[in-house]
């Protein structure tokens, strides 16, 4: 399908082309850019609302700053579609997120305008600060470094660590806080309330506009005048806010809030800020989904809606004539609620993924016992640990790749303290279109090496459900061990999955198919591929045995003895990294048990 850009956008191949336009044309550029994003995402899918919300900001940033010499760092990067389109990738944008196509996130390999690879949140301030410090050391004082970070991403510890350093580092760093009050789900926490307070304080905003007017004049008069203006501005801000501004107290000069959809105002504000040295933050208020009514209204649904009819807003869904298996995340969500209804000790924790993990099902029914703690994986793990010290049965649900950020908390706050926290790692294995930042490739390896940690993966929905039930029982606490339950993105294999709970033996695998000569050992849903493989092989008269080992730790030693006595050829299959994974665990076991086995080929 041919999607034509508007008449100005058509001739913008790099930001250089954009910068040749008159300021009065920027409104049209933004309108065309927004339309192009709507046209493309409706047909090819991808993230939607976030990019629509920063159309004006994207245009203004590339207009005012000399990218790529000035370094623009996007946080998370799911909002960078406009940036990609303006920086030479419009013509390949139809390959966005497709195999071998362009990435859905900024990627250093893809373009010199993508200064930093992203996907996980809250890295932008630290990365841009690193670049700014390097520029300073090299004497490149003309270069600007801009981090664009959302109010959701701002809730993570890493963002605070970056600001804490930036406030004393004296570099040309501009942080743009893109405040739309939304994470994927509504943003949570005290910072959100604080930002709303500033945004809605009429008195403050009146003074701010006046200060801005004066500051603009002073900026054009030179450094000494700027210093005076700065003093006036700080005094006014301090008085009006009746307390010191949070960002100012970290040493960042705070500007805003400004309307992030007023392109001309944005351009003039950014021009002014370009001339103010040192670390500063511009608070922009935007609307996620701006310009597409349905996306403005239901921002969570339109975060990444899939393909849709842009006229009617109908999101295309496959229609099936028979019941389909559920998504693993929904099995988690519904099962947890069922268990929590029977067991008052159960709690659920998610760092900013209520919809993505389906913990929202329990949050709706039991708001006191299922908590969204913001984009704060480290905190999610430690708060779970704290709850566990008090005897709560905590299901802490984190995407496998996001858990990487909370590794020390898993070791220090959970395993060393022998706390039986239940980690449910969603999106384990290949995540798909989100790409390498989101693949849950390493969890078996990074969890398996920890004392007081078990690692399980269900082959299907019933296994997930039953294991959740098993570990929710008080008797699981006797192991003094945490457990990782990893499962992938997407659907399982059993449409009729709501069966009565059954207790599962801890650390025990099972046989799926008896066979000869070769044994296939699998862990997790990838075992279903082995089932298909066995069916294909059966047609050729080959009948390997298939075992679903369920646990990467503890390994089912007695089953392994049995397997190794019967077979001298073993194949292991897992949706995870080779080094340190389940296959490595089996190899280690074989190395430790040489008498029972013939080395596998």
């Amino acid at each position, binding site marked *: 399908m041919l999607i034509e850009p508007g008449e100005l956008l058509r001739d913008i191949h790099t930001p250089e082309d954009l910068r040749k336009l008159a300021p009065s044309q920027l409104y049209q550029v933004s309108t065309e850019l927004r339309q192009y994003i709507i046209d493309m995402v409706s047909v090819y899918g991808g993230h939607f609302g976030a990019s629509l919300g920063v159309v004006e900001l994207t245009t203004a940033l590339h207009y005012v700053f000399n990218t790529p010499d000035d370094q623009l760092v996007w946080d998370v990067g799911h909002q960078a579609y406009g940036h990609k389109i303006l920086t030479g990738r419009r013509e390949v944008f139809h390959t966005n*997120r*497709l*195999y*071998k*196509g362009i*990435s*859905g996130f900024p990627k250093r390999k893809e373009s010199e305008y993508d200064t930093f690879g992203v996907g996980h949140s809250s890295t932008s301030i630290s990365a841009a600060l690193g670049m700014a410090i390097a520029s300073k050391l090299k004497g490149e004082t003309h270069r600007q470094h801009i981090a664009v970070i959302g109010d959701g991403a701002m809730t993570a510890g890493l963002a605070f660590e970056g600001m804490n350093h930036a406030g004393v580092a004296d570099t040309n760093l501009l942080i743009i806080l893109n405040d739309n009050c939304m994470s994927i789900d509504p943003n949570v926490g005290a910072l959100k309330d604080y930002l709303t307070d500033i945004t809605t304080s009429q008195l403050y905003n009146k003074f701010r506009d006046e200060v801005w007017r004066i500051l603009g004049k002073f900026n054009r008069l030179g450094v000494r005048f700027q210093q005076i203006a700065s003093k006036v501005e700080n005094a006014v801000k301090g008085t009006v806010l009746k307390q010191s501004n949070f960002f100012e107290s970290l040493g960042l000069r705070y500007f805003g809030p400004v309307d992030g959809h007023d392109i001309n105002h944005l351009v003039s504000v950014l021009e002014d800020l370009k001339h103010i040295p040192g670390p500063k933050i511009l608070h922009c208020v935007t609307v996620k989904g701006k310009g597409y009514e349905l996306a403005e209204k239901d921002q969570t649904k339109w975060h990444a809606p899939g393909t849709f009819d842009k006229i009617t807003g109908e999101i295309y869904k496959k229609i099936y004539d028979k019941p389909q298996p559920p998504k693993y995340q929904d099995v988690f969500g519904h099962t947890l609620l069922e268990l929590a209804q029977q067991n008052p000790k159960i709690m659920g924790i998610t760092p900013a993924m209520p919809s993505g993990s389906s913990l929202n099902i329990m949050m709706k029914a039991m708001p006191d016992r299922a908590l969204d703690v913001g984009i704060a994986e480290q905190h999610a793990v430690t708060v779970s640990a704290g709850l566990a010290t008090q005897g709560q049965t905590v299901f802490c649900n984190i995407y496998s790749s996001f858990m990487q950020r909370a590794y020390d908390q898993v070791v220090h706050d959970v395993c060393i303290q022998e706390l039986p926290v239940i980690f449910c790692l969603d999106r384990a*294995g*290949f*995540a*798909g*279109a*989100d*790409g*390498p930042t989101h*693949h849950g*490739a390493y969890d078996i390896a990074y969890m398996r090496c920890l004392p007081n940690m078990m690692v399980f993966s269900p082959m299907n929905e019933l296994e997930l459900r039953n294991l959740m039930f098993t570990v929710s029982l008080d008797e699981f606490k006797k192991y003094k061990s945490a457990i990782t339950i990893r499962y*992938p*993105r*997407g659907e399982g294999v059993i449409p009729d999955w709501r069966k009565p709970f059954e207790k599962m033996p801890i650390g025990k695998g099972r046989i799926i198919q008896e066979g000869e*000569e*070769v044994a*296939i050992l699998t862990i997790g849903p*990838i075992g279903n*591929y*082995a089932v*298909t*493989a*066995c069916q*294909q*092989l059966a047609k*050729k008269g*080959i009948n*390997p045995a298939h075992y679903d080992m369920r646990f990467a730790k503890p390994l089912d030693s007695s089953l392994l003895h049995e397997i190794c006595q019967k077979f001298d*050829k073993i*194949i*292991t*299959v897992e*949706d*995870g*990294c*080779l*080094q340190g994974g389940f*296959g490595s665990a089996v190899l280690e076991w074989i190395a430790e048990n040489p008498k029972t086995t013939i080395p596998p*080929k």
Partner: protein
Amino acid sequence: MADQIYEHGTQMELHRESGFAPEDIAQAVEKILENVKVKVL
């Protein structure tokens, strides 16, 4: 998955690329039976 960065695509495309789609598993079984050293991915 081998010791490399896998980019984006559908889960099945990536499973194929990394060598553990159903056909790959079947092929690995056949090769191991022929005593061909299977390159585990």
